[in-house]
């Protein structure tokens, strides 16, 4: 056989085999992700999160922010989930936390008893940095905005130290002449979180519910089935969204750095991602005076904010 022919056949066979090799079983399984070990930092800054909605969602929501702040401030920013709105006071008092995203009424109450400072709060799309308390029901309950129609019904509230989940419905009923809030309903259920209150109504466990409009709308947008079944009966005036407040005893540099970082969060890529998780576009400064409306509402209700009890879970 001539040399050329031998070489040609050899080359053809080699190419075929190479092609076979390339296209057979050559794909490797997906790489196993080995995350980089986290840098161990000297200081820890513990920020508490209220269980205003599903605690797992809360954790997921605030985790990117904690990570960003850890890197930006070079401190170990730890998110602490609280199981109750009432427990925040104990945590502040015991200095087990350095700060927290306070609910507005929570802030008003604690501000009177502990030395805390508001720093900033997230601003959602549409420049929304406030929320309203809402009272809602299922459409099929045939309940109207007339508070008389609410009588004898079961209502789902969040907690005694929440604006939307307790103060507003009380204020609203009082506004319509119903002073004995507890007796107007056949049963009051404190669900502990806003979404739990909404779900309680949706599932028919209660007839009415009170919660934050922001959480209500978010839950409805994520669950079309709920959206079609629910109806809002009343809305409160706007109060500041949950703001990050810190202990005043915290060193000034940390407070300043934390505030500045939050206010410039939207300017960085990592910050933008953290904002995205919070469903926000930026942070804005929160001032104590912004809570005056709520303080007046408490006065209207006859609530002594200096002595109002923090009811912890059980």
């Amino acid at each position: 056989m001539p040399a050329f022919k031998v070489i040609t056949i050899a080359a053809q066979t080699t190419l075929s085999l190479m092609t076979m090799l390339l296209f057979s079983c050559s794909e490797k399984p997906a790489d196993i992700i080995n995350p980089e070990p986290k840098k161990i930092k000297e200081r820890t800054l513990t920020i508490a999160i209220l269980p205003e909605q599903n605690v797992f969602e809360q954790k997921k929501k605030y985790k990117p922010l904690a990570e960003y702040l850890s890197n930006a401030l070079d401190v170990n920013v730890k998110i602490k989930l609280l199981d109750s709105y009432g427990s925040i006071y104990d945590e502040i008092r015991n200095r087990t936390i350095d700060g927290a995203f306070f609910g507005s009424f929570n802030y008003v109450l604690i501000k009177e008893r502990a030395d805390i400072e508001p720093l900033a709060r997230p601003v959602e799309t549409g420049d929304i940095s406030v929320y309203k308390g809402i009272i809602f029901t299922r459409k099929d309950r045939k309940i109207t905005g007339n508070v008389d129609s609410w009588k004898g019904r079961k209502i789902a509230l969040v907690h005694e130290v929440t604006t939307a989940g307790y103060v507003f419905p009380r204020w609203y009923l009082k506004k319509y002449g119903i002073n004995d809030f507890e007796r107007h309903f056949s049963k009051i259920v404190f669900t502990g979180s806003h979404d739990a209150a909404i779900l309680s109504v949706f599932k028919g466990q209660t007839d009415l519910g009170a919660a934050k409009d922001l959480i209500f709308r978010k839950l409805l947008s994520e669950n079309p089935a709920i959206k079609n079944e629910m109806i809002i009966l009343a809305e409160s005036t706007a109060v500041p969204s949950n703001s990050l407040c810190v202990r005043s005893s915290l060193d000034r540099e940390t407070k300043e750095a934390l505030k500045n970082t939050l206010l410039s969060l939207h300017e960085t890529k990592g910050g933008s991602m953290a904002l995205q998780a919070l469903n926000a576009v930026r942070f804005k400064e929160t001032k104590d005076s912004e809570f005056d409306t709520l303080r007046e509402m408490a006065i209207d209700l006859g609530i002594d904010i200096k002595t109002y009890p923090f009811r912890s879970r059980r």
Partner: protein
Amino acid sequence: MKKRLISGLGLVLFIFTIGAMVVIKNLNTIVVNQNLINEQDIIIGKYNEMLFQMKGAQAELFRHQAGYTRNIEDLVNYIGMFDENMGFLSRQYAGHIHDVACMQCHTKIEERLTSLKGIFTEINTMIKDYKEDVSIMITTDDENQMRFLESAATQKGNTISGHLEKIRHAADKMRGEIKGKRNALINRSQIVIFSTIFLTIVFSLIIFIVLIRGITGPVNSLIKGIQRIASGDFSQKVELQTKDEIGFMAETFNGMAERLSTMIDEKDRLLRTLQDFNLELEKRVKEATDKLRLTQENMARAETLAAVGTLAAGISHEISTPLNTITGFVQLTLSSLDDTSAIKGDLRVIEQEALRCRKIVQGLLNFARPQKHEEKLTEINGIINETLSLIEYQPSMRKINIKRDLNEKLRPLDADPLQIKQVFLNLILNAIQAMQDGGELRIVTDNTGSGIMIEVSDTGTGISEGDMQKIFQPFYTTKKDGTGLGLSISYGIIKEHGGDIYARTSSDKGTVFRVLLPSLHNAGDPGTPSPDSLDKRG
């Protein structure tokens, strides 16, 4: 040879490449399988983690519900990590759901993965409900709701754990299957590797041996051929059937040897031609020299004869008159004397000697003044027979055997028959005189290319070398009573006829005279036929 080397190298490389490719392919498959096993190990690890996380979450939940702790971090973290692992596994399996490579070995992989996807979806749904239940349960103050949710969450957690154990078992089974396949592949690969190495070595050796033989065989043949040719044997050829460089070299070498052989043959031929030419040249030079010498001799003889003739004519004329006077007075005296006279005898002697002198003078005159030459068509055989008839009855002929070898078809020629007869008579008489004790007289006639040839030979005593040089000179004779003019006259007659005369002698064989005469019937000159070994004299 280059082609062979390239072919051999190509073949070895081909075998090696195939072997290497097979090995690489197997290694690749083994690596892929090993990666799959590693992946499976990680997946199983993840299942274990998830089981631990789920059980940890359940325990944390219980502790929280029982009031042992207010901390829900661990619970949330457990579920968070569970979620992360779930997401990781979902992505991991989703990455293989349409994996063609996986399907090559695992025919039911898609079916399995689809089934797994269903379980994952169920777990995801359950974990979502679980989280919702747990979250509400943690925050609610409603005792009934709390109990209900606690029971529901526990049940869901257990179901999830059950599912996890089920799929962990399936993953473990799959890992076992992959491991089995990997081990089988390793065994097979080992066999393939060893076989490939063995085959590569064997083929390499075979090709090496074939190549070495292919190189050394023709080279040795070429060397032998070169040695044979170097020793001068150009008839041998280097016999190679190969079509490679060595074959080409052998072919070229054969061509060169062939050309060399042709050149040597040509050289030999030219050498032989040159030698022949030399011989011919020498021969011709010799002939030319002989001819020149003969011519010179002839010229000298002719001059001598002319001088002798002139001298003889003068002397003869002067001597004839006194001789005639002597003869006349002697005869007159004799006639006047009686027969008894005492001086009569002496006078007769004087008369005889005077007559002999007159005869000699007459001969000289005949020589100096040739007789009248009258040519006519003459039959030489007839003249020879007439001449022989004149002498055959002489007493000296009794001991001599005459042998005639006459060509009956001898060409006639234009000649003077009397002069020719005189020539033959001289030659025959000389021959007879040479055979005093008997012998054989042989006369031969024959046609030649341009005339005729007559040989007169005897078996007598022959002529000495010194005499041979002078036999045609006038007055030279070895006989007591000879005049020394017979052969000189014969030579002159033959020359006058345009012919030639040669003589050859030997002491034991006798003498041969050869006469060549041109035929009148032939065009041109009678030429000078080669006398062969006869010496030309004259």
